[in-house]
């Protein structure tokens, strides 16, 4: 659905941010992008709906090149981005008005706009906040509204750039749960994060460093890669624990490392056997 071919990008001040990125994102995939600060994740995200255009190479979204200005409205409708800070994503005085912003830009007639808004509110379970000012919402609720603002445009692909980094763990889990549900309903998800704990169930993980893709694969193989530590990334504690146990001869199957609950169960089983 999204294809990046040999994409390179430097910011106007000369900072190189992306170098020779090749990436294909399939429809319905949950793809995670990780990497330390300044590795180019956000820059990559901005390329996914044409907010930045590659200086070399090209980005093709459903056959549309992001450098073709006439295709931009179509591309923005197809791929929506939720950013890190909920406060600077609100344009409306009320939640309802904010959600209407995208559909209004698509020049839909008023009746259709209302339908989009209602659908997005239902999808996030936020009907009761319709007339609230987005400024009065908590960080977690704010990210839900930002997500609803994107959903109101009915995109097929959703990009999340560190959306949980300003939230407490509980609201973070809520947001992530909602994103998973959307993916199960068929949306393509690109999920950028620092928190590797969130990635156990990703279809694919891309690891970036200095503007390049340095590792790519399913979570099991990426987490097992020895170079991860040197890239400034810390493994989820359960994965790390499993790795340590393995070196002393105790093998915990990958599926059991997804939660403390299943992990403990597995260990109990092992004890009972001996």
């Amino acid at each position, binding site marked *: 659905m999204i294809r990046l071919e040999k994409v390179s990008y430097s910011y106007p001040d000369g900072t190189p941010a992306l170098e020779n990125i090749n990436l294909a994102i399939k429809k319905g995939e949950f793809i995670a992008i990780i990497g330390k600060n300044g590795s180019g994740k956000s820059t990559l995200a901005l390329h996914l709906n044409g907010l930045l255009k590659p200086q070399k190479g090209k980005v093709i979204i459903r056959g549309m090149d992001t450098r073709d200005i006439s295709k931009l409205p179509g591309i923005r409708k197809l791929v929506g981005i939720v950013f890190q800070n909920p406060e*600077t994503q609100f344009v409306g005085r009320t939640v309802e008005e904010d959600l209407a912003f995208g559909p209004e830009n698509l020049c839909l007639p008023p009746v259709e706009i209302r339908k989009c808004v209602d659908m997005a509110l239902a999808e996030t379970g936020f009907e009761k906040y319709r007339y609230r000012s987005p400024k009065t919402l908590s960080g977690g609720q704010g990210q839900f509204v930002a997500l609803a603002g994107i959903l109101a445009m009915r995109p097929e692909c959703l990009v999340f750039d560190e959306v949980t980094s300003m939230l407490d763990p509980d609201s973070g889990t809520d947001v992530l749960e909602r994103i998973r549900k959307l993916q199960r309903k068929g949306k393509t998800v690109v999920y950028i994060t620092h928190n590797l704990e969130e990635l156990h169930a990703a279809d694919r993980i891309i690891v970036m460093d200095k503007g390049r893709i340095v590792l790519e694969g399913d979570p099991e193989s990426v987490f097992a890669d020895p170079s991860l530590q040197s890239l400034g990334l810390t493994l989820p504690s359960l994965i790390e624990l499993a790795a340590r146990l393995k070196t002393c001869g105790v093998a915990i199957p990958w599926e059991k490392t997804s939660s403390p609950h299943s992990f403990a169960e597995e260990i109990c089983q092992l004890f009972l056997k001996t």
Partner: protein
Amino acid sequence: MHEPVFSYVPGVSPLHKLDPRTKLVVVMLLGILAFRIENFAGIGALFILFFALTLLSRLPMTVFFRAVRPMMLFIIFIFLAQLFFSDGRPLATFWVLQPSMEGLENGLTLVSRFILLLLFAALLTASTDPSAITCGIERMLRPLPLQWLGISSFELATMMNISIAFLPLLFERVERTKAAQAARGMDFVKNPFHSVPALAIPLLRGVIRDAEELALAMESRGYQGKRRTSMHELSMQNRDWIALFVIVLFIIIVLNL
């Protein structure tokens, strides 16, 4: 946070249901009328109209007190200035001050005009959703050749909406910057000359970053500064034409009083 002065009070009254353009035009006409009439009968008629419309709007009176209260000092000042410094038949003498009959009349008319203006503006803003007002302004400006100024009516409307939505963020940032500077030992009371740049520079930097992020988020949601539609459906109904007709009739009558 204190209640904003001109704020919207949601409702379903006949006044709420009017098209925002109708209300904008009516308020403009009545504002002009208030400054054209010279006699007390006309001013009285405008006050009666205001009370009639308020009854129709089913808005609480507090809305209107809130609109006038912040200007009260100014209103009293212009009244006293007119009262004491107009030439005319003296009413009484207090030391060197001589309030005059003409002064009293001038003061009352001027103050009434001013209060009427505030009241009708409050009636508009309290009975109309702010984004419907901007939508109405946008639709009225659309035929104007604004592209000569390098701006479209759509951009203008979005700018108005964004400023309404973005202002609280700005205030919050001022508070945050103040707190951060105070934590570093800056005394805002003792040291106003130092503290202004100390506040302004980080503030500006923060605001610019916020604005950049906001612009990116807007563009990402398909904003191009070109033609866009609005969730608010504006269509002039029979009631709008009737309202305009009644007001025009009212104006003609008042001008001939």
